[in-house]
C-alpha cells in the first residue's frame, strides 16, 4: 500500500513538476532495473524526482488514462518506459475477467487508432496544407484551410441539389411525359398567355467560336440546359403512392441548401470562437505572446526562416511604433487633434465618394449591358461588362483605400482593419448594387403597373425568363473571377517574379516579391462564395462549378505561393483571423439569403419557363402543397405554427437563455476572482522571499557550523512511514548538506519560517503555514503552536509554562537518543488535535499546486532555504528572550546544541 500512498502524493509533483536538472544521470539510468523488480521501495534519493505517482493504480484510472497520462508527463523517455514496464507488471493483478476486458479494450483502442491513422490519409490535401504551414506559417495556412472548407461545403451542396433536383429531373425527363401532370392550375389571369413564350436560342448552325462565347456567357446551348432555372420542369409525379413534386423539391432544396451552409458556418465559427475564448479573449498584450509564441517552430528552409525573422522584427517595430503613436496622440494639442479629425472626416468623405462612384459605375454598366444586344465578340464584351467593372473596381479601389488609410494616421493595426473593412464593404455592396440594378430592370423599378411590366408583372419584353438571366449573371461573375485569377497569375505574378529575380533595376527592387496577403485573398474567396449563394436558386449547378473553381484556385494559389510570394510583412493571427473570415462569410450569406427570400416571396416567377411557371410567387407552391396534405398532418403543423405552441416555446427558450447568461456571468466573475487571487498569491510569495533574503543577509552565516551530524541517523530512519510517504523529506534525507538538528530538520525550518510570517502579515500565516504542515506532519507543531501562535499572543509566557510543552521538551530531549521515533510519536499525541486538522485541511493540499511549492520542487537547494531560516531564529528578539528563559528548549537551536553535547 505504500505504493499507492506514494502515488497520490507524487502525482502532484509529477504533474506540476518542472523537473529541472537536478536529476543525476545515473539515478535515472538505474531506475529501469529497479522497476523490473516491480519493487515499490525505491532508493529514497530517487523518490521525489521520479514522480512515481504519475502512474495511478488500476483502481484509480482506466488503461487508457494511464497511457495518456504517461505520454503527457514531462519525463525523459527512459523513465517513462520504466514506469510503463511497471504498469505492465501490474496488469496480472487484475482478475482474469478484468484482464480479458483490458485486452479487449486495448485491441479496440489500437484498432481505433489505426482506423484514425488511415482516415487521416483521406483528409483532403493534408500534406499540402501541412507543407504550406511549414513554409509560410499559420496565417497563410488558415487561408488554405478556409478554402478547403468552402470546397467541401460546395461539394456537399452539389450532392444535395443533385439528389433532390437534378437526378429526379433527369429521370422524369427520360421516362417521357406520360407520367407528368402539371401542378398548379392557379393561372390567375387568362390574358397572360402572351407571356408564356420562351425563346431560348435556336438550334440553327452557329459558327464555331460562338460555342466558345456561349460557354463563357451562359447563353445559346448553355441557356436551355440543366445549368439554369429555365430548363427545369414544373411537373409532379404521382403514381401509386409515390409522388414527387419537382417545384416543391426545387424550392425546399434551395432552402435546405441555405440552412445547411448556415449550420456549417456557425459550427466552424463556434470552434474558432472556442479557441479564442479558451485563450482568454486574446486580451494578453502583444509583446509577451509575440516573444514566446511568435516563432513558428514548424518553419523549414532558409528563406522561410529569414522571412519570418524579418517579419517578427517588423511586428515588434510596429508594436513599438504603436506605443509611440499612442504617446504622441496623448500629448497632442487641441489644434492638432481637431486638424486630425478634420482630415479624417475629409478622407472619409473621399472614401464615400469613391464608393459611390464605384457603385454608380456598376449600376450604369449593368444597365447598359442589359439594354443592348450585340452579336459576336462585342456582345460578349457587353455581357461581361458588369463583371469587368466589378473586378476592376475590386482591384483599384481597395488599393486607393489602402493609401487613404495611411494618410488617416491611425495606429498600424487599425489601419489594416480599416482598409479591410472598407474592402469588405466594397465587395459585398457592389454585388448588392448589381442585384439591385437587375431587380430594377426586371420589375421596372418595383412598379409592376408601369407600361412595360403591366402585362406580365415583370419586364417580359426584355426578360422572357428573368431567373435564368440572373443565373447567367452570377455564372458570368463566377467564371470571370476565375479567369481574372488565372490571368493575374500568368500575366502579372510570374512576370513580376521574373523581373525581381533577374533584373536588378531600381523599379524591380522597389517592387520586390509579391506578398501573399491573407485578408484580401480571403475576401476574394468570400465574394466568390456569396455570388454562388446568390445564384444558387437560379443556377442550381453553380455549387459544382464553384467547387471546381475553388479547386483550381487552390492549386493556383499554392503555385503562386511557392513560386512568387514572400510572406506578408504584417501577418494575420491565424486564430482570430479564422473567426473574422467566418464573420465575413456570414455577411455574404446574409446578403445572398435576402436576395433569395425576396425573389421567392415577392417577384412573380416567369411564365414561360422554370418549375414555378403559372404560380403567383415561388412560395405559393408551399401552401398549395400544404393543403393537399392529410388533415391530421395539417392540424399538427397548424398547431406548431400557432400561438399555443410558439408562446410557450418562446418563453422556455427565454428562460433557458437567461439561465445560460447567468451561468456565463458567474463563470466570468469566478475567473476574474481566480485571476486576482493568483496575483495576490504571487505577491505574497514575493514578499516572503524578500523578507527571507533580508533576514538572512542580516544574520550572516552563523549556522554553518551546524554540520551534517545526525544525518546518518535520519537515513537509518527509513521505517518511519510518514517519511517514506513524503517525497520532500526523502529528498532532504538524501542531500548531504542537511543541517542536522534532531530527527527532522525541515520541521524546524518551516516552523521558523512561519513565525516570521506572523510577524509580517497575519493572513500569510495560513497560506504558507499549511503546505509545510503537509510536508512535515510531526514537527510542524513546534512551529505553529509554540512559535507562530504564541508569539502573536500575549499568553506567551503562560504557554511556556504549559504542561504540554513541558512534555514536549521532554520528548525533544530524546531526539538525540536512539529512541527518536518514540519521541516523534509522543509528540504527535501531545499535539494531536491541531495536527490532524492541518492534515485534513484542504488548503494545504491546494497549496501543493501553488507556485511556492513548485518553486520548492524545482529548487535543488531546498536545504539552503532551510538553513537561512535557521539562522534567523537566532536573530529574532523573541529568541534571545528564550535564551534567557529556562524553558527555551523549544527553540531548535538549543535542541541541536543539547543533542550535540549529548553526542559528544
Amino acid at each position, binding site marked *: 500500500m505504500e505504493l499507492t500512498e506514494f502515488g497520490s502524493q507524487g502525482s502532484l509533483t509529477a504533474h506540476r513538476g*518542472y523537473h*529541472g*536538472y537536478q536529476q543525476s544521470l545515473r539515478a535515472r539510468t538505474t531506475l529501469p532495473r529497479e522497476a523490473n523488480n516491480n519493487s515499490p521501495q525505491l532508493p529514497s534519493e530517487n523518490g521525489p524526482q521520479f514522480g512515481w505517482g504519475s502512474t495511478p493504480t488500476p483502481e484509480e484510472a482506466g488503461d487508457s488514462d494511464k*497511457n495518456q497520462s*504517461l*505520454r*503527457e508527463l*514531462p519525463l*525523459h*523517455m*527512459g523513465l*517513462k*518506459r520504466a514506469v*510503463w514496464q511497471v504498469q505492465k507488471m501490474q496488469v496480472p493483478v487484475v482478475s482474469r475477467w478484468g484482464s480479458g476486458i483490458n485486452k479487449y479494450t486495448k485491441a479496440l483502442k489500437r484498432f481505433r487508432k489505426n482506423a484514425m*491513422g488511415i482516415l487521416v490519409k483521406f483528409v483532403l490535401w493534408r500534406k499540402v496544407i*501541412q507543407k504550406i*504551414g*511549414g513554409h509560410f506559417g*499559420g496565417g497563410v495556412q488558415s487561408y488554405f484551410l478556409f478554402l478547403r472548407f468552402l470546397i467541401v461545403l460546395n461539394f456537399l451542396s452539389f450532392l444535395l441539389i443533385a439528389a433532390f433536383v437534378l437526378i429526379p429531373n433527369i429521370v422524369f425527363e427520360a421516362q417521357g411525359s406520360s407520367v407528368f401532370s402539371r401542378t398548379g392550375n392557379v393561372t390567375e389571369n387568362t390574358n397572360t398567355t402572351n407571356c408564356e413564350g420562351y425563346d431560348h436560342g435556336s438550334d440553327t448552325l452557329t459558327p464555331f467560336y460562338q460555342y466558345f462565347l456561349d460557354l463563357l456567357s451562359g447563353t445559346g446551348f448553355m441557356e436551355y440546359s440543366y445549368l439554369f432555372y429555365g430548363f427545369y420542369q414544373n411537373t409532379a409525379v404521382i403514381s401509386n403512392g409515390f409522388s414527387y413534386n419537382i417545384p416543391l423539391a426545387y424550392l425546399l432544396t434551395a432552402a435546405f441548401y441555405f440552412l445547411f451552409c448556415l449550420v456549417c458556418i456557425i459550427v466552424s465559427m463556434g470552434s474558432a470562437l472556442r479557441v*479564442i475564448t479558451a*485563450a482568454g479573449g*486574446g*486580451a*494578453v498584450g502583444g*509583446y*509577451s*505572446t509575440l*516573444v*514566446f*509564441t*511568435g*516563432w*513558428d*517552430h*514548424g*518553419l523549414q*528552409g*532558409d528563406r*522561410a526562416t*529569414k522571412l519570418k*525573422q*524579418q517579419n*517578427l*522584427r517588423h511586428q*515588434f517595430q510596429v508594436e*513599438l511604433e504603436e*506605443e509611440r503613436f499612442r504617446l504622441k496622440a496623448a500629448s497632442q494639442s487641441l489644434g492638432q487633434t481637431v486638424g486630425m479629425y478634420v482630415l479624417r472626416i475629409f478622407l472619409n468623405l473621399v472614401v464615400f465618394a469613391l464608393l459611390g462612384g464605384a457603385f454608380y459605375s456598376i449600376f450604369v454598366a449593368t444597365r447598359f449591358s442589359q439594354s443592348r444586344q450585340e452579336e459576336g465578340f462585342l456582345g460578349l464584351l457587353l455581357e461581361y461588362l458588369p463583371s469587368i467593372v466589378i473586378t476592376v473596381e475590386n482591384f483599384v479601389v481597395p488599393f486607393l483605400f489602402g493609401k487613404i488609410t495611411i494618410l488617416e494616421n491611425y495606429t498600424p493595426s487599425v489601419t489594416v482593419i480599416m482598409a479591410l473593412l472598407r474592402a469588405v464593404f466594397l465587395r459585398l455592396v457592389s454585388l448588392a448594387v448589381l442585384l439591385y440594378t437587375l431587380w430594377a430592370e426586371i420589375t421596372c423599378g418595383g412598379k409592376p403597373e408601369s407600361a412595360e411590366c403591366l402585362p406580365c408583372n415583370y419586364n417580359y419584353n426584355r426578360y422572357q425568363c428573368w431567373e435564368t438571366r440572373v443565373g447567367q449573371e452570377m455564372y458570368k461573375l463566377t467564371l470571370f473571377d476565375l479567369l481574372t485569377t488565372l490571368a493575374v497569375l500568368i500575366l502579372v505574378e510570374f512576370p513580376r517574379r521574373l523581373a525581381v529575380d533577374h533584373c536588378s533595376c531600381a523599379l524591380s527592387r522597389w517592387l520586390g516579391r509579391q506578398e501573399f496577403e491573407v485578408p484580401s485573398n480571403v475576401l476574394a474567396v468570400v465574394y466568390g462564395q456569396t455570388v454562388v449563394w446568390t445564384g444558387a436558386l437560379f443556377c442550381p449547378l453553380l455549387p459544382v462549378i464553384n467547387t471546381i473553381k475553388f479547386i483550381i484556385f487552390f492549386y493556383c494559389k499554392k503555385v503562386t505561393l511557392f513560386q512568387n510570394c514572400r510572406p506578408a510583412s504584417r501577418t494575420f*493571427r491565424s*486564430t482570430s483571423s479564422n473567426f473574422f473570415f467566418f464573420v465575413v462569410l456570414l455577411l455574404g450569406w446574409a446578403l445572398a439569403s435576402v436576395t433569395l427570400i425576396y425573389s421567392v416571396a415577392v417577384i412573380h416567377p416567369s411564365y414561360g419557363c422554370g418549375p414555378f411557371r403559372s404560380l403567383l410567387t415561388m412560395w405559393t407552391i408551399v401552401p398549395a402543397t400544404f393543403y393537399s396534405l392529410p388533415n391530421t398532418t395539417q392540424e399538427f403543423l397548424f398547431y406548431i405554427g400557432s400561438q399555443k405552441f410558439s408562446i410557450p416555446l418562446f418563453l422556455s427558450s427565454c428562460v433557458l437563455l437567461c439561465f445560460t447568461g447567468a451561468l456565463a456571468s458567474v463563470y466570468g466573475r469566478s475567473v476574474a476572482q481566480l485571476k486576482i487571487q*493568483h*496575483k495576490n498569491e*504571487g*505577491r505574497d*510569495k*514575493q514578499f516572503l522571499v524578500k523578507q527571507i533574503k533580508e533576514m538572512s543577509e542580516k544574520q550572516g552565516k552563523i549556522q554553518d557550523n551546524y554540520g551534517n551530524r545526525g544525518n546518518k541517523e535520519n537515513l537509518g530512519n527509513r521505517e518511519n512511514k510518514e517519511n517514506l510517504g513524503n517525497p520532500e523529506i526523502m529528498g532532504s534525507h538524501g542531500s548531504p548538506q542537511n543541517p542536522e538538528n534532531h530527527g527532522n530538520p525541515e520541521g524546524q525550518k518551516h516552523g521558523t519560517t512561519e513565525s516570521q510570517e506572523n510577524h509580517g502579515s497575519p493572513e500569510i500565516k495560513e497560506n504558507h503555514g499549511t503546505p509545510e504542515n503537509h510536508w512535515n506532519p510531526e514537527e510542524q507543531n513546534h512551529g505553529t503552536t509554540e512559535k507562530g501562535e504564541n508569539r502573536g499572543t500575549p499568553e506567551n509566557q503562560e504557554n511556556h509554562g504549559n504542561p504540554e510543552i513541558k512534555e514536549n521538551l521532554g520528548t525533544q530531549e530524546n531526539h538525540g537518543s536512539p529512541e527518536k521515533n518514540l519521541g516523534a510519536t509522543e509528540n504527535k499525541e501531545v499535539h494531536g488535535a491541531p495536527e490532524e486538522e492541518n492534515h485534513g485541511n484542504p488548503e494545504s493540499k491546494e497549496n501543493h499546486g501553488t*507556485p511556492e511549492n*513548485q*518553486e520548492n520542487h*524545482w*529548487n535543488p537547494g531546498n536545504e539552503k532555504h532551510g538553513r537561512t531560516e535557521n539562522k534567523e531564529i537566532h536573530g529574532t528578539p523573541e529568541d534571545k528572550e528564550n535564551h534567557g528563559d529556562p524553558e527555551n528548549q523549544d527553540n531548535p537551536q538549543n535542541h541541536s546544541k543539547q543533542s550535540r553535547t549529548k553526542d559528544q
Partner: protein
Amino acid sequence: MGNKQTIFTDEQLDAYQDCTFFTRKEILRLHGRFHELAPHLVPMDYTNDPDVKLPLALIVNMPELKENPFRNRIVESFSEDGLGNLSFNDFVDMFSVLSEMAPRELKAIYAFKIYDFNVDNYICKEDLEKTLNKLTREELTPEEVNLVCEKAIEEADLDGDNKLSFADFENMISRAPDFLSTFHIRI
C-alpha cells in the same frame, strides 16, 4: 514484420507507442532518421537498448531544426545530461512533445525550458534579450530590445518579481491562441 523486429522488439514498440504520441510506424521512421544522422554510430538493431548518444552538432543539422534559431536550446532541453547529447529515447521524446498531439501543458513545460537560457528556472531579462535577438536576427536596436523586454515582462509577470516564473509563463501561454500551432515541428 520481419524488418521491424530487427530494429525493435514488439515490447519496445509498445512501450514507445504508449509513452509518446507516435504510432509504431512513426517510431520506426524516427529510428530511420536517427540512424541517418550517424550511420556508423547508431546501430540498426535496438533490441537491447544500446546506449548511443549523438552530439548536439549532429542533431541540429536535421532539416527540421537546421534553420530554427532555438535549435541548440531545444536539443539541450531534451537531452538527459543537459548538454545536448541525445540518445534515441531523448530523440523520440523531443519529437513527441513537439508533435501535433501533445497537450498544451506539456508543451508549455518544455517551451519554458527552451526559453530559459541560463537554466535558473526563471525567464529573466537576460533570457528574453537572447530570445529576442534570435527571433529578429539581432536587427533590433538595443533600445528596442530593451523596451520590448520590459514590456513583455510587465505584461506576463503576475507576481512582480521582474522575471517570469513557470507559473507566469504557463498563464501567459494559456492565453496565447497560437502557441499550440507554432510550438510544433512536423517530422
